[in-house]
């Protein structure tokens, strides 16, 4: 097997990984702080993709149309998240997890059909932004410039997120809310606002990843339920609620999928599910997480 082929697989896996990290980081944050497993996170991602397509469609001749669209889509989905959290989700925090799971599944159904009603069922696609349409040769493997950008955005978001969580007052509050909600509330902090904020940040990240994926993947109905399972696998590998765990979980997922295809071509998808099951059995709290209540 050629070294350049292996390196190409490695780069492909890394691109997948960085996309998954963008998606899964929001899922992990919401679970870590609010203990809500959000099935609708994939739907937010899909809405982000459709919104980006819509804005690109409106702004077609503009040079920076794509980047405006990415920003607009992320903000749009963040707003959607804020509305959902304020109006509905906050009433379910005290309830059993079964009801929270089903609530987020209801959102999957509603948002899926809303997207169908608004944008139809045909495949939509967005072309790569003009400045990043080229490719780059690295050790004999060709890497589109756009993918290279994604590989930079992923770690950038990881570091920014980690700094925000570890170094800022807001980040400390979020970590405190994750550890002991009642105690933080008793100390006078507005826990409700922290929850809303986390949900909005998480929705923003979902919208951002949905918008950024449009030049690489076509937008189709069903992309929501497909991606959410991948995101679940990533957060389970890394540890539900662990931020860096999600990062390394994405890297592992991307590489296992990428090299799994070389080893057993038709069962590579099986290899990641199996990895998820093994990790849940051996270390339910994931490779980087800590055992929780």
């Amino acid at each position, binding site marked *: 097997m050629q070294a350049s082929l292996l390196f190409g697989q490695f780069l492909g896996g890394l691109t997948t990984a960085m996309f998954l990290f963008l998606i899964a980081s929001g899922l992990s944050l919401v679970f870590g702080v609010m*203990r809500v*497993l959000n*099935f609708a996170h994939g739907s937010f991602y899909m809405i982000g993709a459709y919104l980006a397509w819509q804005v690109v469609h409106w702004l077609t001749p503009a040079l920076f149309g794509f980047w405006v669209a990415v920003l607009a889509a992320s903000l749009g989905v963040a707003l959607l998240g804020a509305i959902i959290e304020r109006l*509905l989700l906050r*009433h*379910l925090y005290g*309830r059993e*997890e*079964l*009801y929270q*799971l*089903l*609530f987020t*599944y*209801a*959102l*999957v*159904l*509603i948002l*899926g*059909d*809303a997207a*169908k*009603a608004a944008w139809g069922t045909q495949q939509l696609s967005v072309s790569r932004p003009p400045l990043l349409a080229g490719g780059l040769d690295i050790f004999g493997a060709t890497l589109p410039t756009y993918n290279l950008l994604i590989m930079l955005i992923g770690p950038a978001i990881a570091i920014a997120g980690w700094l925000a969580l570890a170094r800022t007052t807001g980040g400390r509050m979020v970590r405190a809310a994750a550890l002991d909600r009642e105690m933080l509330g008793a100390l006078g902090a507005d826990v409700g606002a922290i929850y809303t904020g986390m949900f909005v940040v998480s929705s923003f990240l979902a919208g951002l990843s949905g918008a950024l994926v449009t030049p690489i993947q076509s937008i189709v109905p069903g992309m929501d*339920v497909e991606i959410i*399972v991948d995101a*679940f*696998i990533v957060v*389970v590998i890394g540890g*539900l609620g662990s931020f860096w765990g999600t990062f390394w979980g994405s890297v592992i997922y991307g590489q296992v999928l990428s090299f799994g295809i070389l080893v057993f071509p*038709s*069962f590579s*998808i*099986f290899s990641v*599910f*199996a990895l*998820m*099951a093994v990790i*849940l*059995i051996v270390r*339910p709290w994931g490779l980087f997480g800590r055992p929780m209540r």
Partner: protein
Amino acid sequence: MSRRNSALRRQIPWTLVVFLAAFSIPWLGSRYDTFLGTQIAIDALFAVSLNLLLGTTGLVSFGHVAYFGIGAYVCGILTKTYGVPFSLALPAAALGAGGFALVFGFFCVRLTKIYFAMLTLAFSQIVWAICFKWNDVTGGDQGLPDVPYPDLDWMSAIPGFGDLRIGGQFYLLTLLLVTLSLAAMRRIIASPFGRMLTTIRENPERAAFIGVDVRAYELAAFVVAGGFAGIAGALFGIFNRGVFADYVYWPKSAEVMIMTILGGIDYFWGPVVGAATLVLLNQQITSYTEYWPLVLGIILLVLLFAFPGGIVGGIAAGLARLGRWNGRRADA
């Protein structure tokens, strides 16, 4: 449950009335009624089997569809590919589904709450990936079309049954098998074993203190629920004239969970009511609009916020209030 309710129940044997009404559908109803009846019966069995975990034992399984799918594939492969008669393929489907539930459940019951839900989901996706990709055995993404109807000549020999269509005869067979399965599950829930499952749901720590092997009981419940889901799957494969990988995809697990909750997880008949409601509603609504998932999502929201006890829970609460009012008036 108020005394008034139980008196009402004693006067009229509701279970028998419903069974007889369902039994008469092939003669009194249209072909379409029979079709809907078959679907309700199968979904009811599937939902009640899930409720053995959800309501009775308090385990949130998000991968119950795996055992439904395994039952469907085992029965479909045996009858279609190997020509095994249905009378052997059906028990094989139940055993196959129960066997997989034993293996998967062994790991799942070691986890609690959200982790339990995640691991059941992971296993069901593994089953889906295998069914979707293993072309030689499961037909891969093409599925397994033309699963044959069972041999029902014996039923045609019964006077009055001979001129029914094959669909009507299969409905009667389904109704019989579902009724037997429901009766068996009712016995299981009412048995000391079932009582212990409820104890575990209410307080697992306490159950462990009094010397109950909580994991073993949960695993047993998981296997029984998986086996009955396998029967439902086997019947569905024949009813739908084929077995496809879609049966095992994770949104199906959510669908059956919605049925169960819609009816009410605190009552044995709740999931049956939920299945019937959802099937009939689906049939009504899809004739007006293609946006059935949207309607389902809204129903689910209303349910979660306004009627967490489900339909049967809501009716029972209403009757109880009525009973209290009547009682008050009698006192005054």
